[in-house]
């Protein structure tokens, strides 16, 4: 149902883009995909994605949702979001090169320019991580 390419939805670019595809949006919930590639910037020597990379992937998933909603409102550019706060991040399992990360993000609240988001990431049947974050959305230029 999503008709946009990922780079039409988020401002991040290689080598720091950490979402491949926005799969689905249902109201305030989005599902994204990301395949961990060997050239990812946040991999350790054993090919394990650092927790920071998982957090960035969830943040960019929230950015893809924000970008989608902005496009659907007819905006020609997408907003830039900055992480304001992370709470209750839990790492359950690590993600490695080749893993397909599937993330669900849900907008819980919006206060002015601040968006509160819950996110959870799985790789096949392994839960990778979950968190809550506040993202500051910088208005469209």
């Amino acid at each position: 149902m999503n008709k946009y390419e990922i780079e039409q939805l988020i401002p991040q670019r290689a080598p720091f883009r950490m979402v491949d595809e926005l799969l689905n949006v249902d109201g305030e919930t989005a599902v994204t995909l990301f395949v961990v590639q060997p050239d990812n910037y946040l991999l350790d020597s054993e090919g394990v994605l650092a927790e920071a990379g998982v957090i960035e992937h969830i943040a960019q998933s929230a950015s893809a949702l924000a970008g989608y909603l902005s496009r659907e409102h007819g905006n020609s550019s997408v907003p830039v979001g900055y992480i304001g706060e992370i709470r209750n991040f839990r790492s359950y399992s690590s993600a490695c090169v080749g893993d397909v990360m599937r993330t669900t993000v849900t907008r819980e609240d919006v206060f002015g320019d601040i968006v509160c988001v819950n996110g959870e990431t799985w790789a096949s049947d392994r839960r990778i991580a979950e968190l809550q974050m506040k993202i500051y959305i910088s208005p469209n230029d």
Partner: protein
Amino acid sequence: MLLENKYYQIKEMKMNQQEGIFRLRLLPDCDIYRGHFPGNPVCPGVCHIETIKECAMRLTGKKLSIASVKQCRFLAMAAPSICPEVNVTVGVCPVEEGFKVTARISEEAKVYVEFKGLMTV
């Protein structure tokens, strides 16, 4: 260390058993800024989390994983043009599962990041 000498360089460090203060230079030519964001180089918050983890690894002398983050606040926008050098202050407290880590990234009176989490060996 994923980001040392790519994203930051350690200029100076002082450590004791529980605390370390690291003086870092943020490297403006780091590749990350090509994508975050094109024409608008801003430090990704998560790179500061990884930097804190790497400082905690130096302080403890152990390879650590971030098991949980109770809270991490990003209080001001950071970029090599805004803060070419920063201080990372890291405190570790040994617990059964690993280390409770509290950290702050700041420059003079300005605080950029405050972190509270649990890292495991």
